[in-house]
Structure formats: C-alpha cells, structure tokens
C-alpha cells in the first residue's frame, strides 16, 4: 500500500474510513488501518486530533468522540444526499440577490446559472431582522418619521417588496412594515427571548403580502365596469369577482379597504375601468379627481 504522507491525503482517507464505519472506530483501529497514523503513540494521537480539526475547518465534516465506547464516529450530515440534490436543483432554478456572495459550497450549486427562472432580491434588512426573530429580540426603528418598538415575527416578500410582520409595542394587533420605508438605524431593545411568537402566522403573512387587503378603512363593496381586454389584469390586481359579462364590458365587484389609494389604482386603467357604485364611493372618487384638477 502506498504510504500516505500529505495531510490532505491522510485526512481524506480518514474521512472515507470513518464513513465506511458508521458504528465508530477506536484510535488504535485508525492507527492500524489508515495510512499515516501508524504507531499509535502520543505524536500520532496529536496528529489525529489536529487532522480532525482540519476536517471540520476545511470540509465541514465533524467527528465526535464517544467517551463511553472510546470510539470516533462521523456526526450525521446536516443534509442527506437526496436533500442536497433537491437543494442543488432548487438553487439552479433560482437566483437570490442581495445577500453576501456565496458559492453555496455547503451543498454545491449550478455553476453557470443557465437554468435560472426565478430571481429574488433580498432587502438588506432581511438578515438582521431574521436574526432578531430567531433570537426573539425586540427592535426599534423609524417608520414614517415615527420611532417604533416592535416584536418581529416573520418576513415576507411580494411584488418585489419585503415586509416585516410584527407587533408594535404597546399595541396587541399584528402589523406589517415595508422594509424600504424603515429609516435610521435599526437597534435592538431589551434582552433576547423577550417575547413569544404567535402560533399560526400564515393568515397574517398572507394579509401582509396581498395588496387587496391593504388598508384599514371600513370595507366598501364597489361595482366596476371593465373593458374585456383589461378584465383579467383588473381581476388579478383587485381580487375582483366577475358578476356580469358580455362582449362589450364586464361588471366586477371588489372590496375597497384603502380609500385614499383607490382613485390612483383606478387611474392606472386610464378609463378602461369605470366605477359604477355605490354612489357614495363614486362621489368620493369624483371629488378626489376634482380636487386634483384644481391642485396647485
């Protein structure tokens, strides 16, 4: 057998050997079987421990020592081979921008990104807030010019915008904060573990990222006539329900929860969507455009 002299050769042979012996091996077995550890004396023991450190640092492979049995064994891998393959496939289809650059060495990754279908940009505050959520650490930041102290619970991205779902102290309701509207330094408040996260956040996250439930005004059911070619886009934009449809136009119903932005959203359709009712809302929108026509 070829004597192994180089550290990298010895270390990788050790990894292969330990991999082949999931029940664990003693130091004397290593000394006997793995090239480079012959002898079993104190110098060999030190070399083995140095190599185990290198295996951890260089390759992320951790070897644990069972004191009772006197055996070394590999710590189980974080990902199974199947999980790693699935993640490699997933990362090949998606590019995440905005995080510190990484070659995803822990799992491997598509080298050239030829298959990328989805590109998501991560806001710079996401890693910081993620860490705060994990630590149950309250944070303070300025939002719309006001300093807020919040208990962060979850992060969500929709329409290329990132949101924090949190409870603003001393209120009890969940609120969402758009990360690009947070200004000033984000600072930690109090100690980690200062709050508990509510059990089921799925509804809160869903509301945070759905533009059709934005706004806290009393909901109003609006009736809108939409030109056929604009119907699909309108229906998606407003989560509208088609109530009547012919070749000329369709009537749809939708719930308005944010009156201030409603005229602006309607204006984007440049007249291909006409507000039919209720009369109170029609009058309000008409007045809004009237004021706009008189603006300085």
């Amino acid at each position, binding site marked *: 057998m070829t004597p192994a002299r180089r550290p990298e050769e010895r270390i990788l042979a050790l990894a292969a050997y330990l991999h082949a012996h999931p029940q664990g091996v003693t130091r004397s077995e290593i000394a006997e079987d793995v090239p480079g550890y012959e002898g079993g004396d104190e110098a060999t023991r030190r070399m083995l421990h140095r190599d185990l450190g290198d295996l951890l640092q260089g390759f992320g*492979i951790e070897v644990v020592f069972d004191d009772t049995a006197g055996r070394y064994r590999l710590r189980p891998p974080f990902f199974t081979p199947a999980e790693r393959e699935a993640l490699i496939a997933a990362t090949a289809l998606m590019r995440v921008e905005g995080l510190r650059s990484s070659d995803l060495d822990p799992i491997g990754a598509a080298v050239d990104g030829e298959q990328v279908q*989805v590109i998501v940009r991560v806001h710079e505050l996401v890693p910081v807030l993620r860490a705060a959520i994990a630590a149950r650490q309250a944070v303070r930041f300025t939002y719309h010019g006001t300093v807020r102290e919040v208990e962060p619970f979850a992060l969500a991205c929709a329409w290329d915008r990132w949101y924090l779902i949190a409870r603003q102290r001393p209120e009890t309701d969940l609120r969402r904060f758009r990360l690009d509207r947070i200004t000033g330094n984000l600072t930690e408040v109090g100690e980690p573990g200062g709050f508990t996260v509510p059990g089921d956040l799925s509804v809160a996250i869903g509301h945070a990222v759905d533009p059709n439930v934005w706004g806290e005004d009393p909901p109003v059911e609006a009736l809108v006539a939409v030109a056929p070619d604009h119907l699909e886009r309108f229906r998606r*934009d407003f989560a509208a329900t088609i109530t009547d449809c012919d070749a000329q136009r369709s009537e749809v119903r939708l719930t308005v929860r944010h009156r201030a932005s409603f005229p602006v959203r309607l204006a984007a359709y440049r007249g291909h969507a006409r507000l039919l009712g209720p009369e109170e809302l029609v009058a309000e929108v008409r007045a809004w455009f009237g004021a706009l026509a*008189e603006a300085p």
Partner: protein
Amino acid sequence: MPPLSKQQKFELLTATFALVEERGPTPLTEIAAHLGIDVGTLRDLIDPLLFLEYRTPTDIVDMSRAFLLDEAGVLRIDEGHWLRNLRSVPPSDDDALRLLLAAEVVAAEITSSPALTSARAKLAELLGAPVTVEATAPPEVRLAQQAILSGRSLRCRYLGHEDDTARDRELLGHLVFHRWGRWYLAATDATDATGPADAAGPGPGGPPEGEGDAGPATPAVKYFRFERMSQVRLGDLRYRPRDDVRPPEWFRIDRPTTRLRVRTVPTVIEYLTVPHVCSTLRDLGDGRVEAELVVVGDRMLDQMLVALGPTTEIVEPAELRERRRTWAAELAARIC
C-alpha cells in the same frame, strides 16, 4: 507559484470536487483555469487522492473509484461528492436563507419532492424565523412552459403597454422567468417580428423597468408580462425554442424621461407606487419636503401626476400643472 498552505489546499480541493460534481467530467486544464492555478499544481494536488485507500482486517479498500483521472486528463467523480455528503456543519445564516428562499419558491411554483420538503424543514428550523416569498405563477405560466417544451407557439391577446390596446399575438416562447415580482415570457413575436416592442412595461407598484429586446445578439426576443395576457392558448406554429435566452439584468429603456420638482408631505413620496427615481429630498420646515423626481415615459408621467395627489404642489416644470389639470378632468369623466 509559492507553496500552498494547508488551508489553501483544502479550499482548492473542495472547489475542484465541486466543479467536477456540477459540470461532470472536466479536463484538468479547465479546472486549473477556473481556479486560477497551473495544471502542474493542480495535478500535484490531486494525484495522491486518486489512489486514496485504507485497510480493513482482510483487505485494502481502494477509494480511487471516487476520483478518476483518465488518460486524456479529464477528472471525473463517479459516486457523487461524498465529501459534501458527509458535511455535518450547517450552512451559514446567509446561505441557509438563500437556500430556504430557493426551496420555498421552487416547491410552491415549480416542483417539490419529499427530500426538498425535509430540507426546507431543516433550514426553517435552523433560521428560526418564518420567511416567505410570494411568487405565485398565474395559470398561463404553466401553459407557456408547456408550449416551450413542445415547441409550439402561444396565442394570446396582449395588452400593449404604451397605447393600452390589446392585439392578438402569436409568440414563440424561449424562457419563462420571474423577476422584479412579476412573471415574464421571453419570446419572439411571430405576429409582428419587425414592429416596435410593446411588451413589458411598468405597472402600479412595480419597480423601474421597461421594454426592450435582449440586445444586439438576440434582436428578435422581447419580454411579455403574463399579467397583460388574456385568452392564452397553444398555437399551431412549430419552432425550435432558443436555449441561449436568459432573464435580463435590466430592460433597455429608450423612452423620454421627465424631471419634476414637487413640494409635498413625506408620506406621499414614501407611498409612490409609480416607478421613479427620487434624486433629492429637502425639508421645507413646514411639514413638507421638496423632492426632485425622475419618471420614464409619458404613461408613467400621467400616472405619477395622479399618484402625487391633490395636496402636492408641482414647482416645475410649470406646464405639468396644466397637464395634471387636464388629465384629472379627463379621468374623472372616464372613471366616474
């Protein structure tokens, strides 16, 4: 080349195996070029590993099947990357977040498997925080992917961004992708291959983007937003989809830009959903700010004039005040 440290050797070995695992059998020359070292150094580094072995009580176990260098100087890994498979250290927070986002989106929109599900659970537990990305694909996305796979055209009504007019289109799709929060189809327009691009424009709440082609090398490819499509169905034209089309880094924008100076309360600027660039912001001391905004294209300018609202004062250019008055009156008549 100076002697390599132990750590450098580990890094080069890891990178070598990663490259070969991901690219398949790879010539040493290509690996060396990728790593920025010479072939001799690379060969010196991997040679002993090609004969990796250890003893058992009855035999010598040869690990050379894991790393194989053929006579043509091509390195291959036949049993997957066992070094990576043994990795027990969890990924860093940033890597875990990157992996979780990819896994969440791919599982929700493209494909999933028990392995991906269990990987997502491990990553979510590691990160200790719910992190969600909404990238729900409209049904037309699946149809477009089916069209590309089968090499058939896609027919639809497409709402032009500039003139708001819908026209029948027959598109030869090459790539479906999601970027800037929207789904796009990169396609050659078989209806009017030589006409002006009118695909992919900004919409309410959208980021700065525009229309355009994929550059001089691929002049016929345009980007079509799925939300502007209706009556989508498979067409009868047969074609060979291009495999060199990639999501664009940015759209080429060749529409006129308008710079306007306004005075308003800060929240109006914060809540603007019209794509724009805010170049300066000055506190006026009366609760308002003076802002300089740049907006691209006539249509976006019209929408910006509306989105600024009645309380915003347009300082300059002065003619935009009249334009806003006229446009607001026209919209009131059309909408109400």
